Every structure is written in structure tokens, then in C-alpha cells.
């Protein structure tokens, strides 16, 4: 194994797409074929990477494309700080640095034959999008697939063209919603907060795995709905995002109690999270 831990790969931007205000998606090609092969040997959905611009630094976020598409990786991220600003300023053809994949993954092989319920809010769809595409690329292995996706306004919904594609697919159910007041006149989806929409949808918990990612307030209000529907904490998955520098369990800042989000996470079940100190999140 390479023990030069902070030496990054180079990825070149093949395409760039604006998803929502301040949110952009890059499709990235590996500069080196050996590094591509090594990446996909290790990559599973849910893992993350450190994307960097020399002179500005590195920023941590998920890989938004599935391991079933081995020619490239995609990432979708919001401009919130200096590094993400510098990354969004890059243009097609330019290179960025990348380290990864790091962290734990969604154990989708153990979900075979089960129904899957994905619940995402706002910018939290990208970490889940890799899982959804991974499942859809291996569609026959899983039961019913339902996606509930909400954002504050219609403009804030990411992957709009893919949402249309998912809505048209007969082998999955997509429910989109925006917060009251966030709808445009031509909006065809639901209007309402994610927990309320989920309650109305009333999905069956039997033999179903739920994946939940979103802003803390959405998570907080959605968990009681899932519990009431009968989902066990062991069947509810989510991801934690803490500030990270190394990604490999050394720099000492992403731990929640004794758990390192970079190595033990970012994917956790609700059951695992319930054993961590809430005061450290």
C-alpha cells in the first residue's frame, strides 16, 4: 500500500453542470489509469474523498457517482468556503487534486432482496445519489425502491434532469417536495416538509431499509416518523459529516466520542449513532 498518505491523484474536469444556486457537479477523469483502477478496486458507495486546489487546500465531500460506472467519478458540492469557492471557479479541462476513497460504505450487498427507502433533503441528495444509481444499476437484486426528496425551493433541488428520469422509471417511486412557499407556479411535486410528506406516503417498514440524509432539523423531525412507521434503528442508515484534514484517522478532529468519522464512518446506522455522545456532534 502507498504510504505517502497525502500525495493526491490528479483528476481532470470533463464536464461541469450547475445544479442549484451555488451547487455544481463535476464529472472527473483520472489522469492516470493505474490510479483509476486502484480507486475502483477500493471504492464502495458512501465513501468520501478530499478534493483540492493547489494554493487553496483540500475539502472533504462524498463521491456522488456509483462504483458501477468505472470510467469517471462525479462530485456535487455547494460553495461554502474558500476551497469550495476555488473548486467551483475551475473550468472544464482543468485539474484538481484528489485523495480517497476513504471511510465506511453503505452495506448494499446485505440489502439484497429488501425494499429500500431513500429520504434526502437539499444538498444531501449527492451522497445518496451514488447509492441510488448503484441500486438501479443492479436493479434486479433489490425489492421496491422509493425516493423521497425535498428542498426549500424548486430551485434548490439538485439533479433536476435525473429526477425527471427517476420519475419516469416504472421500477421505482420518486416523491419530490418543496417547503411551503418554495414552489413555482408550474411545480408538479408536493408542497410540504419532508417528515410530513413521508408520513402521508406511509411506506411499509417490513423488510425495508431506510437511508436518511439531510440537514439536522430534517433528520431530527424525520426519525420519529420512521420509528412510528416501525423501522428499527438497525435498519436506518445515515452519514455524519465532520471537519476533516487527513481522512485517514490521524489528524484528530473528526471523532465523535471514540468514533472516528473518517474511518469508522461516515456511514452509520441509527443504532450505532445512538451509542455516541450527542454532545460531541
Amino acid at each position, binding site marked *: *500500500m502507498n*504510504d*505517502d*498518505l*497525502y*500525495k*493526491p491523484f*490528479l483528476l481532470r474536469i470533463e464536464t461541469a453542470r450547475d445544479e442549484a444556486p451555488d451547487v455544481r457537479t463535476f464529472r472527473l477523469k483520472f489522469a492516470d489509469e493505474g490510479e483509476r483502477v486502484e480507486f475502483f478496486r477500493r471504492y464502495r458507495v458512501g465513501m468520501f474523498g478530499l478534493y*483540492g486546489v*493547489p*494554493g*487553496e*487546500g*483540500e*475539502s472533504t465531500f462524498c463521491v456522488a457517482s456509483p462504483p458501477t460506472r468505472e470510467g469517471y467519478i462525479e462530485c456535487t458540492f455547494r460553495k*461554502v*468556503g474558500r476551497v*469550495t469557492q476555488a473548486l467551483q471557479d*475551475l473550468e472544464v479541462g*482543468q*485539474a484538481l*487534486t484528489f485523495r480517497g476513497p476513504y471511510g465506511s460504505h453503505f452495506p448494499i450487498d446485505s440489502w439484497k432482496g429488501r425494499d429500500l427507502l431513500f429520504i434526502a433533503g437539499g444538498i444531501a441528495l449527492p451522497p445518496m445519489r451514488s447509492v441510488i444509481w448503484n441500486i438501479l444499476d443492479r436493479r434486479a437484486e433489490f425489492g421496491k425502491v422509493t425516493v423521497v426528496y425535498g428542498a426549500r425551493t424548486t430551485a434548490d433541488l439538485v439533479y433536476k434532469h435525473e429526477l425527471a428520469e427517476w420519475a419516469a422509471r416504472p421500477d421505482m417511486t420518486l416523491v419530490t417536495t418543496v417547503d411551503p412557499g418554495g414552489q413555482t407556479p408550474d411545480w408538479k411535486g408536493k408542497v410540504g416538509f419532508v417528515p410530513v410528506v413521508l408520513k402521508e406516503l406511509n411506506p411499509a417498514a417490513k423488510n425495508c431499509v431506510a437511508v436518511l440524509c439531510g440537514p*439536522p432539523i430534517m433528520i431530527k423531525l424525520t426519525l420519529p416518523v420512521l420509528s412510528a412507521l416501525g423501522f428499527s434503528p438497525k435498519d436506518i442508515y445515515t452519514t455524519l*459529516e*465532520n*471537519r476533516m*484534514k*487527513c481522512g*485517514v*484517522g*490521524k*489528524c*484528530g*478532529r*473528526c*471523532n*465523535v*466520542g*471514540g468514533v472516528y468519522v473518517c*474511518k469508522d464512518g461516515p456511514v452509520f446506522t441509527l443504532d450505532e449513532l445512538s451509542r455516541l*455522545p450527542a*454532545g*460531541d*456532534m
Partner: protein
Amino acid sequence: MKTIEIGRFSDLAQALSTAGYRVAAPVDDGGVVRFKEWTKGREIALGAVPVDSVKDFLFPRSEVVARFALEEAGAFTPVPVERFAPKTVALGVRPCDAAALAALDAVFNWDYRDGSYNARRAATTVVSLACAKADAHCFCISVGGAPDGTAGADAILRPADGGSKLVFEALSDKGRLLEAMVSDGQAVPDAPAALKKRFDPAAVGRWLAANFESPFWKEAALACLGCGACAYACPVCHCFDLQDESDRKECRRLRNWDSCGFGLFTLHASGHNPRPDQSARWRQRVMHKFSIYPQKFKTLACTGCGRCARLCQAGMAIAETCERIEALGR
């Protein structure tokens, strides 16, 4: 028996230097004793615990981990980084600082192995100096160490004949390589420093595991200024930051020491901070050393050197915190 006259100690440093080693030792640096690279003519100060430790030579406070040549219009080319791991002898390392190496080895090698740390570790021979004296801040004996402990050392020097000589004892193959540079002699080793056990780290760990939420933390951290001096002086603390530093032609990606005591350490880009106040940060420091680390690596992340307490301008002392925690657990 191998012995060295204390007055001729620099001769050993000189012999090592001549043999091609980089020599690190406690030296007087304008009135402050620091563990630094020794150069000819420099006096070695064996009498005081240096403010920094051998950690600096294995995990430097700033290190280039990646380098890029910057070109036109945002283009760049990676430039290979040469690994800096010269053959080194660390002379006069305190037993507490040598004991800290087990904790550093653990974190730099769990799962992902840190090549630059390991290269320097392999290239370094640690020659400890047993302590004949201890001050009020020393507490190695409370955390599994001893003033004449040999953990992490390749050789140990024991004060003898009332402090006028040192007895050299090799403890590993690396240490035995140095034997030829020390002459034969006779001396009677002095008694190591006498220290009282102040607390039981296992009892502290048990209380910590059950008391993440406790009013104790608010009160215990009141004096903390968040300056980070404790982490910078600690022989075990290893938290770091990665930062880019660039001029027009080149970017250097640096690994710099950092501290969990700083407010920015865990601050998210969103503005959320999981550890929003000093009490959460002090709790992290104590938890990491006495609960998280022992659970993960079966070793404490504190060796009782007392540097943090010696330096703290607010009078905070981790040994005192541990004593209070042990009392709370009774």
C-alpha cells in the same frame, strides 16, 4: 560496564556526529532548554527537562507533504517530495518522552501507515536519560512509566557516582551499535527519582467512559485560555492541520501541528461547531488521552512528563484533573 564522565558528554555527541549521525539533544537555547539538533561546541543541558521532546524529530511541527509547480491559468504539475529521514541519534531523551513513542507509533500506523513518520522512526536511535530528580509536575509513575523506565528506548543512560558519571546500557540492536563509542569503566548508579502515584488511570478511564455529560467539565475548563501550549509541548499530541502555502511558482501542502484546544479546530464550513466552547475542548483532550486512546490502542496518550502543567499560564494541570476525576468515581 560502559560509562561516560558527565563533563565529557559532548564527546559522545561529537563521536556520533563524526560517525555520520544527526544528533539531537537537550541544549541551552538562550536560557531555555530545548530538544534540538546538536552542533559542535554547543553545550548539552542534561539537568533540565527540555520544553520540547524527541517527537519534533519524528513528527516535525511543519512538514511538506505534497508540492506542486504552478503554471499559467491555474494549471499545475505535482513535484515529488523527497522524504527527510536522516540517520539520527536522540541523546538524553527523558523516559517519559521515549515512552510516548508507542502512542505515536500506534496512531501513525493504524490501518493507514504514515511513511514519512515511519522512515524517521526507523532512522532514529533513542538514547534515554534516567531521571535522578523529578519536580512537582512529574507524574510518570501514575501513568505506567518510571523515572528509569526503558519503554521506547534503544539505550539508557543512568546517572551514577552522585551525578558525576553516566552508565550506558544498550537495550536494542540499534543501541548496541553505539556501544563502541562509549568507554569501559566502573560506576555506582544513583537511585532514580522518587515519585508518588497520584491517581489510577484505569479508574479515571472508567469514570470518563460513563461521564461524557457532566457538570464537572464546565467547571474544570474555566481557566483554559485555549492557547494550545499544552498540545505543542506534549510528547504524545499529534493532531495536525493540512494547509497550502504558495508563491507565484510553487505550492507546498504542509502538515502543521494543531491543537484540539483551538476554537477553529472542529468548526464546520456551515458555522456549526461540534465543540463550541472550551469545556468541550478540554473534555476532548482528557477523553482522548485517558479513554479514547486506551480503548483504541491499549496505551494511554499521556506519559506524565508534566510539560503541559509547567507551561500553562492559567495553572491547569492534567494530573490534577485526573486526581479529581478519580475522586468523583469513588
